[in-house]
């Protein structure tokens, strides 16, 4: 076998090997990034990150559902009764005490006022995806008159807060803003 008979300074050889190894690892890591990042949403998907909705036709007791980022967002014009029911609930009774409202502070409590649209307590904008395992809850059903998820029996009240069943959190409220009195931009 070809053993080199001159004792080739081990330090130099070690240094070279380590340098090459380190260089190679850095290169492979850098090259891996494009292959991972390509799985993130592409430019056309990101461009659709906001939708504008006209809610002038939504009467009290009615709701419309629009798609935002591939998920249904419900915009409900709540009746006075529903608003009252939502307000009447004591915060201690809630399973999830946080508002889960992207437009409010992360620590805001789950009072009905913190869930409804600012200054328009009858309007509730909410991502209608069960916080348990992602099914779509049914409108105006369940024992609290809000939403009921048929998959695993989670029940939400009239302001979309989890009241019973396996879901851990209140239905999330996406970032949105009123452009005019009747026009909402979600996202």
């Amino acid at each position, binding site marked *: 076998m*070809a053993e*080199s*008979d*001159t004792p*080739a300074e081990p330090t*130099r*050889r070690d240094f*070279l*090997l380590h*340098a*090459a190894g380190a*260089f*190679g690892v850095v*290169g492979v890591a*850098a090259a891996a990034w494009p292959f991972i990042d390509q799985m993130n949403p592409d*430019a*056309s998907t990101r*461009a*659709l990150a906001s939708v504008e909705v006209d809610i002038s036709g939504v009467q009290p007791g009615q709701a419309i559902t629009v798609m935002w980022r591939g998920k249904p967002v419900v915009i409900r014009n709540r009746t006075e009764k529903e608003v009252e029911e939502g307000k009447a609930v004591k915060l201690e009774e809630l399973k999830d005490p946080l508002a889960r409202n992207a437009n409010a502070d992360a620590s805001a409590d789950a009072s009905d006022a913190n869930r409804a649209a600012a200054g328009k307590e009858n309007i509730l904008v909410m991502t209608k995806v069960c916080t348990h395992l992602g099914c779509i809850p049914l409108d105006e059903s369940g024992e609290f008159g809000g939403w009921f998820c048929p998959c695993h029996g989670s029940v939400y009240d009239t302001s979309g807060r989890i009241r019973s069943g396996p879901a851990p959190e209140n239905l999330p409220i996406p970032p949105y803003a009123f452009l005019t009195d009747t026009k909402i931009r979600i996202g």
Partner: protein
Amino acid sequence: MTAKMIRWAAAAVAAGIALTATVASAEEKAVEFPLLKPARQEWSFAGFFGHYDQAQLQRGYQVYKDVCSSCHSMKLVKFRNLADEGGPGFTEDAVKVLAATYAIEDGPNDAGEMFERPRLPSDAFPSPFPNDNAARAANGGALPPDLSLIAKARAVHRGFPWFVFDMFWPYQEQGPDYITALLTGYQDPPEGVEVPEGTYYNPHFINGVSLRMPPPLDNDVVEYSDGTPQTKEQYAKDVSAFLMWAAEPHLDARKELGLKVMLYLFVFAGILYFVKRQVWRGTAH
């Protein structure tokens, strides 16, 4: 033995030539298009450090919008692309305003009807005709090609040996060179050349002596606000650059990344050369 072999081989080759030569006919070669090869232009995006000239892309878009877009679609380019990095550099707000000046059919709405709404940045450039047949009907039977990829879909063959040199000193600007040549190349047909009714003689056209597109550019047809000369040649160059960007929007990013990758590979190869030399030291081979 060897000499005999060579003589034998030479005889075989000679016989082969004689045999095939008799089959050869001296037919006249067909005319090659384009009649004139496009001239090489200077482009900011050529070469290793090339990148698009933002002002030129903006002017090019203006020419496209005011002139080309009345017949040509550009279905693969979205308004939002105008604000992309390495592009014409519009602001997002400007893109929004611009897109909204065009309508698009959307729907169906809750009543089941289609409706018109202003375009959003995520919508594509509008097409001048509802479909290809309408485009043909309005243009004497010729379909104005979609311009999204035209700068990469047209290249005049450079032929041997140029393509070999091009490999070692990259020349990837055949498309814009061709478009510039075509747009400025209209002229009166020479004596004795008949062009078909409704077509225009252009020796730079890649697919014949004449084409259906009338000369689209002339001096002062588009108003530039930045003081760039309003000549036919300038318009042609600007719109060619814009079309190159439309076809290859990530060119800037590609060349920038390429520089880094190449630098890395050269250094790495250098280190590996010394590793190899160290490993093989003292081992004759």
